[in-house]
């Protein structure tokens, strides 16, 4: 088959770095944490190892109303990433998002803003374009099979209302980060019903939380609605895991693994 045969948009394997109190951590359901080290080092590793995109999530910024961690972004920027970067954490308005983009992020995740003010999210889309905005939704499934959405600041959960679903379908964000927060940090634990039953119909989904093994990623990548899978702990610990996963998933429409040789 010629290269032209692969002329399609690839699905993506995202590497995730979770930051709390300024340190990269291994997270277990966003309840328990183990320190991993300096986030900029982990981000640089994922860049070197060939992740398709890197998600940097600073999980305590909205909680403390601290705004985005611009200092961390500045330190990462100085290292000269050659991989697309998504930033999540503390983005309150368009000015925050613009500051984040200027410091080297390509896209921003919004979570608290979705709860607080969809109107401000529309303003964000007008400034940055919807392609730069990802809606981040920590979700779980009740015993009755309903998808519920967590506001991690208050700990309250609510059913995804038709208004929220309609908003997600209305072109103000480009993708939804579906976070299985209950199973996050546990190997092979992602609840695939979150993707299968996700109500918004037109917006592509990024699956995250409890993803680690190739068989599990393959199942998700075969879902037409899934545009990307995001892996945290499993990638950060093992240098060749991106290469191994991509090799194991060679039949999937992922970008083949390429060794970074330019540094």
């Amino acid at each position, binding site marked *: 088959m*010629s*290269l*032209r045969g*692969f*002329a*399609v*948009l*690839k*699905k*993506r394997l995202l590497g995730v770095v979770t930051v709390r109190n300024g340190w990269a951590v291994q997270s277990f359901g966003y309840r328990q944490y183990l320190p991993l080290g300096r986030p900029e080092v982990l981000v640089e590793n994922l860049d070197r190892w*060939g992740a*398709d*995109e890197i998600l940097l999530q600073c999980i305590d910024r909205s909680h403390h109303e601290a705004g985005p961690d611009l200092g961390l972004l500045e330190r990462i*920027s*100085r*290292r*000269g*990433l*050659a*991989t*697309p*970067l998504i930033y999540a954490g503390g983005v309150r308005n368009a000015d925050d998002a*613009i500051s984040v*983009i*200027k*410091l*080297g*992020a*390509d*896209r921003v995740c919004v979570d608290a803003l979705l709860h607080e003010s969809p109107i401000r999210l529309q303003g964000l889309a*007008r*400034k*940055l*374009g*919807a*392609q*730069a905005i990802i809606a981040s939704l920590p979700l779980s499934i009740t015993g009755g099979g309903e998808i519920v959405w967590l506001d991690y600041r208050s700990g309250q959960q609510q059913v995804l209302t038709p208004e929220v679903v309609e908003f997600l379908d209305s*072109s103000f964000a*480009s*993708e939804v980060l579906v976070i299985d927060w209950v199973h996050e940090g546990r190997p092979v634990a992602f609840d695939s019903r979150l993707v299968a039953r996700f109500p918004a119909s*037109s917006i*592509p989904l990024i699956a995250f939380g409890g993803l680690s093994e190739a068989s599990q990623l393959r199942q998700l990548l075969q879902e037409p609605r899934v*545009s*990307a899978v995001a892996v945290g702990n499993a990638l950060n610990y093992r240098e060749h895991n991106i290469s191994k996963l991509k090799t194991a998933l060679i039949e999937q429409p992922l*970008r083949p693994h*390429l060794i*970074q*040789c*330019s*540094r």
Partner: protein
Amino acid sequence: MSALTIGIIDYGVGNLASVHRCLELLGYRCRVSREPAILDHTDLFVLPGVGAFTAAMEALNSFNLVQYLQQQAHNGKPIVGICLGMQLLAEASNEFSYTTGLGLIPGKVSALAPERCHIGWNTIEVHHRDMLLKPSDGMSFYFNHSYVLEPPVEYQSALARLGAPFTVAVRHDNIVGLQFHPEKSQGEGQKLLRNVIEGLCCA
């Protein structure tokens, strides 16, 4: 031969840091500025951009850069527009409202229908006549956009496909536009950017 000096147009919008680091990594001197007195002493302009067309043109206008860039382009200064920077080279855009662009490449920017966004790594197919991009034919680059510039065929350098093909690189003499992000496309992006800069400056 001394290293080329790249003028990165700073109009308050866009991912300047990534472009700057990438160009430095490639060995170029960089001047990040919106001041003609500084930009005049560079060999090539890079016009980056992330965001919406209207806001970007408002920013270029507010810094009196529209006429300056048009004049420099007509004087033969090489200019490389990246992502939104490529779209700004167009005559106009319909993003949110009708807005005129720099008018350096014929054609208008419109929504990428029926797909609402083109995000991720996609392969480019380079037109045979474009020798700057030819070494990158069939390679994958990172895209992140929801609008697209469709110029007349003679200005099209490369296309990508989302079902139907659409233009992802344009060329008009000393002006090149790249809809993808070479600075965020790892090794292949760096190779392409070097080829484009060296090709334009040494032509």
